[in-house]
């Protein structure tokens, strides 16, 4: 799967022509031709924080897990508790390998007849292969306490489009197009209803730190719904937003990005995702390794930091403390909300305390940086 980017024509989402017609700058991301910006990343970012933005996230993966063994299988496959979810609930979770490394971070939706897993686009094939491998494994060989025949995994990625509306005006805009009672849909809850006449799973979730909704729809509904939303939201300032602002929005919230801040070499404990690791569960893939790490202490932690000199943190830049290299930057940018350079990176656990002074090496120079607690921007 290392060849996914090279030599293949990027896939197009159903909204590709809309993006091109709107003058978006298109890039290849996770094998898809995606809009990185329309009017400019900073303007789009600020519009999401102050009004609302519309995102095409149709590249993301969706898998259905159903069958009589689905709940027990899911409980085994992810670190968070999902078997106790009620229909209409969604929950953030991590899929780990037995060594605690992160296969993917996902949102799990409990529907009437199945669990819907929403996954990172770059991980679709890997996740399906991993989940199917788990399904076929028996207890004792690392598999779930479930008969493989009792679990059905289906990849719905190609038959699912995803549009997100994010920002404080989202509910008001969406309410004009649906009869669903959106005020009753609390964060991490969803309903299935119609939007502008199209069937949609309407979920109060997102990756921006703002209030907003994600709409899972059929591919043929994508263009009419995209247009209807832009028209309905025009008076509120709704604009299309690309992946560039999606990245700065999530960075300000310190949401990790798979491939940057988390991957198979990092564990959820190192990444500060302890809240989705439920050690009181009977068993799940990675439990023993993560218990060991919890008991022995994590060797490194993902921290947020602000530069105290001029520069911009970028993935891979070394981080130093007391003149010694103690880690690397995993994500960084100029925060459009703060106008300050912010970053995330792994550092040795002893250097992870908020207030710790680090130095970041940028083009041969060391720039002071301070570990900060929590989100860069409060919402």
């Amino acid at each position, binding site marked *: 799967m290392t060849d996914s980017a090279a030599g293949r024509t990027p896939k197009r989402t159903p909204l590709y022509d809309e993006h091109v017609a709107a003058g978006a700058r298109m890039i290849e991301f996770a094998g898809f031709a995606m809009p990185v910006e329309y009017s*400019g*990343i*900073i303007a789009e970012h600020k519009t999401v924080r102050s009004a609302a933005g519309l995102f095409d996230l149709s590249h993301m993966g969706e898998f259905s897990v159903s069958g009589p063994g689905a709940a027990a299988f899911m409980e085994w496959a992810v670190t968070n508790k999902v078997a106790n979810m009620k229909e209409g609930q969604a929950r953030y979770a991590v899929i780990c390998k037995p060594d605690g490394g992160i296969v993917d971070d996902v949102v799990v939706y409990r529907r009437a007849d199945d669990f819907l897993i929403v996954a990172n686009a770059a991980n679709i094939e890997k996740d399906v292969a991993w989940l199917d491998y788990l399904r076929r494994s028996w207890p004792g060989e690392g598999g779930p306490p479930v008969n493989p025949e009792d679990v059905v995994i289906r990849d719905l990625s190609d038959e699912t489009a995803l549009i997100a509306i994010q920002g404080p005006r989202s509910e008001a805009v969406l309410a004009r197009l649906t009869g669903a009672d959106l005020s009753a849909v609390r964060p991490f809850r969803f309903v299935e209803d119609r939007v502008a006449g199209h069937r949609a799973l309407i979920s109060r979730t997102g990756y921006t730190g703002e209030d907003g909704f994600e709409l899972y729809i059929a591919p043929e509904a994508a263009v009419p719904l995209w247009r209807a939303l832009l028209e309905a939201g025009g008076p509120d300032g709704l604009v299309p937003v690309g992946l560039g602002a999606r990245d*700065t929005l999530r960075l300000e919230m310190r949401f990790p990005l798979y491939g940057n801040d988390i991957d198979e070499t990092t564990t959820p404990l190192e990444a500060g995702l302890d809240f989705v690791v439920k050690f009181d569960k009977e068993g799940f893939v990675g439990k023993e390794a993560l218990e060991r790490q919890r008991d022995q202490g994590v060797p490194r932690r993902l921290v947020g930091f602000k530069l105290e000199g001029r*520069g*911009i943190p970028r993935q891979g830049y070394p981080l130093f403390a007391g003149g010694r290299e103690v880690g690397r930057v995993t994500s960084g940018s*100029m925060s*459009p909300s703060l106008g300050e350079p912010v970053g995330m990176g792994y550092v040795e656990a002893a250097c992870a305390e908020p207030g710790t002074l680090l130095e970041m090496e940028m083009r041969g120079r060391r720039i002071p940086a301070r570990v900060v607690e929590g989100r860069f921007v409060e919402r």
Partner: protein
Amino acid sequence: MYPEDLRYTKEHEWVRLENGRARVGITYYAQDELGDVVFVDLPRVGTNVQAGEAFAAVESVKAVSDVYAPVSGRIVEVNEELADRPELINEDPYGRGWIAVIEMDNPAEADELLDAAQYKALIEE
């Protein structure tokens, strides 16, 4: 978008020749490709640079782009205004968005640079 009185490089710098000195910036095309510029890493005045050497960096929200010296010489001036207003590179790439002035070692080096028509042909390829 590509003034006739400037010279250009294949790496998308522009040069304005001013009595043996070269004022340098990045072209309209370069800033448009980068998007919102949020940081300019300026060289120090007094530094000697060789033609083709990365002597400054322009960073947008998403990307870092090196700026290469179009000619050899000594940096005699840098645009300090960019420290607080890096967006000038987007707003006025050939004016207030200039980056540095190089005192040329060999003014004949400027003859090697592209003219506006050649540069336009290059980016339209």
